[in-house]
């Protein structure tokens, strides 16, 4: 079995670690980097609890090897709040009661982030399809949809506010 050095930018910091070829990215993030906000909920790529952004795209980190992300950029839930200020999605989930046990929440938020990056004004249906790779057992999704709508509005307002001030 081969071992490989992985140089990767995680949440803005460059890390370099040697890992076994078979180490899954989610274990790299959780066990090697101690970023435990990214969770594991299945072994078949179904639940999405392990969702992170890889080079800006939401992926299931249980279905990619750590060695594959050498040279890449990863964002996890831990990087979303900047200088103690919550990201609009985090605010939305809190305001709208978009979480209960919190276990699917980081994956759900990262998935939603990619969705809003691609489509800043999604319809309710687009949101539902957009988060269909993430399972939540507690909320019944309705309030997650509201949380994402809240964030979309907030981001749009923020953008226009910036434009005005500029």
């Amino acid at each position, binding site marked *: 079995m081969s071992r490989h050095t992985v140089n990767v930018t995680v949440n803005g910091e460059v890390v370099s670690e040697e890992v076994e070829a*078979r180490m899954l990215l989610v274990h790299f993030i959780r066990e090697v980097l101690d970023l435990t906000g990214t969770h594991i909920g299945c*072994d078949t*790529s179904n639940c999405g609890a392990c969702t992170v952004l890889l080079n800006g795209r939401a992926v*299931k980190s249980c279905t990619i090897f750590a060695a594959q992300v050498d040279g890449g950029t990863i964002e996890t839930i831990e990087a979303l709040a900047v200088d103690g200020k919550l990201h609009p999605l985090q605010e939305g989930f809190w305001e709208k009661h978009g979480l209960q046990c919190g276990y699917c929440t980081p994956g759900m938020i990262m998935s939603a982030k*990619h969705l809003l990056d691609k489509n800043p004004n999604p319809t309710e249906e687009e949101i539902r399809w957009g988060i269909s790779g993430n399972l939540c057992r507690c909320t019944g999704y309705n309030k997650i949809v509201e949380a994402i709508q809240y964030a979309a509005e907030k981001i749009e307002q923020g953008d226009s506010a910036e434009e005005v001030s500029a």
Partner: protein
Amino acid sequence: MIPGSFDYHAPTTLDDAVALLTEHGGDAKILAGGHSLIPAMRFRLAVPDVLIDINRIPDLEYIREEDGHLVIGGLTRESALEESSLVQEKYPLLADTAKVIADPLVRNLATVGGNLAHADPANDHPATMLAYGASVVAHGPNGARTIAIDDFFVDLFATALERSEILTEIRIPTPPTGSANAGGAYLKMERKVGDYAVSAVAVQLVMDGDTVVSARLGLTNVNPVPMRAIAAEAELIGKELNDEVLEAVGRAAAAECDPSADLRGSVEYKRDLTRVLTKRVIRKAVERAKGGDS
């Protein structure tokens, strides 16, 4: 669920990848999107000694038109199809298909080439490519060759690819425009998002008024090998469309497929579902053909 150990290679040229594949033969697996392979490895249903990661080979991800074809790089992600305005505007059958493969997160990594090369009759692209009459380009030690999609799927999980060949490109003939009215559609019945099809039908056709000039149909997950519904096509081509013709086409498709019973349904259900979906998908394709969609 932890994969077994393996040696990992990440070649940066196609030639290196082919050389590694030639060297390791049956002990090696190509790692593209990994969304069929890695779960199988986690359950140790697949225990390759060597993984050849082709993701670092440049220029295998593209979608463009050339020489009367839509050409798609083997490593093109499913999500790229969804996001391509070219695909959305001119290749609605492919656009339909891309939207219903697995789930959005999987589609961000899963590749078109992998979906075909895995030759899983439950995968969605095989039926679509059969309906398009596409071809695939394979790279091996002796360079590139083109394989017609009709010759590509040879058995369950088996393709015409040689052991040391890598699927690098998919070529879809651009549907005719102008006086001919081309249309296509994919209709998949799945139990929930992310599931494989209970049955799904792909169709690409050309209409002249109400008459079907040409048509190809592909079926998903109702046969041990991805299949074209040739008998159904025969019921369709040259006919003026009406309910009776559609019913005959649907029945032909239901009769010629060979589904197996599982949790998704009985043989009878899958056949009947194939009949129903065939009728519906043709209506949709015809609507598109008449509406000016290709």
